[in-house]
């Protein structure tokens, strides 16, 4: 049975006078893979950054894993233990090796014993195909490798949800597939995924659900096939035709 893990109810968000999120109502079930697409500047990133409290909301209700993010008394660290995040620019810890990047938070946040922690990290590195990079520093890796380490770092916390904020947008084209493969693996683990992406292939093949976002609003929310084959809104049709032309042109 589907249990909701993320619930937005009438969520509003402003940057000064700029209205970034307008009356967001969304329920994401545990284990769902949700892709969020839309033009840049539409508020997609803001939307997922509210889920782990990187961006506070101004009004409405946002329940994540049983915690209310609108409540100032909520301990954000408790939410973040179960909600990982993967960034466009990786944000690996530059002063730590690949292995330490993965073991640091489990060690100091979860107090996981060293031996178990290291074994788990090496296991994850094997999963993402980087076990021979364990002792390197992030600066020595390619973008695609960094992003796979970042995903492994998130997985090491055994999260229920991982948020992906344009995980492949900063990568060279030939690096993207490796990262998408790792994301598919994450989806297979039953982890709830919210993915802001421009990868229409991923959205279509791996996603359970597709949200088209524009001007701070959810314009469409349906099965990916339906969206790609029969977009409802004019904005979505325009967006899709642009994206597809770009792909063909590029």
């Amino acid at each position, binding site marked *: 049975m589907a249990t909701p893990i993320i619930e937005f109810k009438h969520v509003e968000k402003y940057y000064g006078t700029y209205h970034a999120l307008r009356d967001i109502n969304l329920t994401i079930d545990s284990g769902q893979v949700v892709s969020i697409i839309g033009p840049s500047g539409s508020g997609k990133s803001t939307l997922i950054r509210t889920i*782990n409290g*990187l961006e506070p909301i101004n009004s409405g209700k946002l329940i994540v894993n049983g915690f209310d993010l609108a409540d100032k008394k909520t301990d*954000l*660290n408790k939410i*973040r*233990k179960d*909600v*990982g*995040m993967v*960034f466009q*620019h*990786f*944000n*690996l*810890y*530059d*002063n*730590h090796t690949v292995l330490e990047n993965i073991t*640091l*938070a489990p060690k*100091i*946040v*979860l107090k996981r014993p060293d031996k178990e922690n290291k074994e788990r990290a090496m296991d994850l590195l094997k999963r993402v195909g980087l076990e021979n990079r364990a002792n390197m520093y992030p600066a020595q890796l390619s973008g695609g490798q960094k992003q796979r380490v*970042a995903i492994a*770092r*998130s997985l090491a*916390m055994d999260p229920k949800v991982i*948020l992906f904020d344009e995980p492949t947008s900063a990568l060279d084209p030939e690096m993207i597939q490796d990262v998408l493969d790792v994301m598919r693996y994450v989806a297979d683990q039953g982890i709830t995924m919210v993915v802001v992406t421009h990868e229409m292939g991923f959205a279509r093949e791996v996603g359970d659900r597709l949200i088209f976002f524009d001007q701070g609003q959810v314009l469409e929310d349906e099965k990916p096939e339906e969206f790609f084959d029969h977009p409802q809104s004019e904005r979505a049709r325009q967006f899709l035709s642009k994206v597809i032309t770009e792909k063909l042109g590029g």
Partner: protein
Amino acid sequence: MAKILVDNWPQFIHGFWNTVWCSLIALFFSLLLGVIFALMEVAPSKLASAIAHIYIEIFRNIPLLVITMIFYLVVPRSGIKMSGFAAGTIGLALYSSAFIAETVRAGINSVGKGQMEGARSNGMTYNQAMRYVILPQALKIVIPPLGNQFVNLIKNSSVLAFVAGFDLMYEADTIAFSSLETINTYIIVGVFYLILTLPLSYYMRYLEKRLA
């Protein structure tokens, strides 16, 4: 010049070691205070940030000699007894800590925002992120400018001469006054300061190259 050096060797050495001691003690406390106030200044708490800001602006913008005189002449009136050495060292530590705080703060700010976001999203508290991710990177960045602060600190320790701190400069004044060999005495003292500061300068330049 050699005669001056030989005749007054015990005083020179006494002054030299007092300068070394004063510098080491002031270095330790100014670094400690500097890092603490830098952390307070960048802290999310507006109150902590304001306190640090006031502290830094006060000690950065009052001449070292004035701060030292306050500890030597004003503070003892409230019943706290203090030698010239202590007053000078405290003044030097507070004065230098304000500059070190500004340097460290700049270092912390130069670490990308993504590092903090990555760590917080990974479940770490603000303090954990600071301790394990941000501060180690910031300190590495500020090693060269900190080195310059340390060289300044050693040179500024000559302020002890004004409050009878028996440092190198104080001894030099005494020797120059009694022997009337003013020029030679101060040249010798300059060389003593160079013995302390030059190796530090070169070591910092080496570190700067290695870290770059």
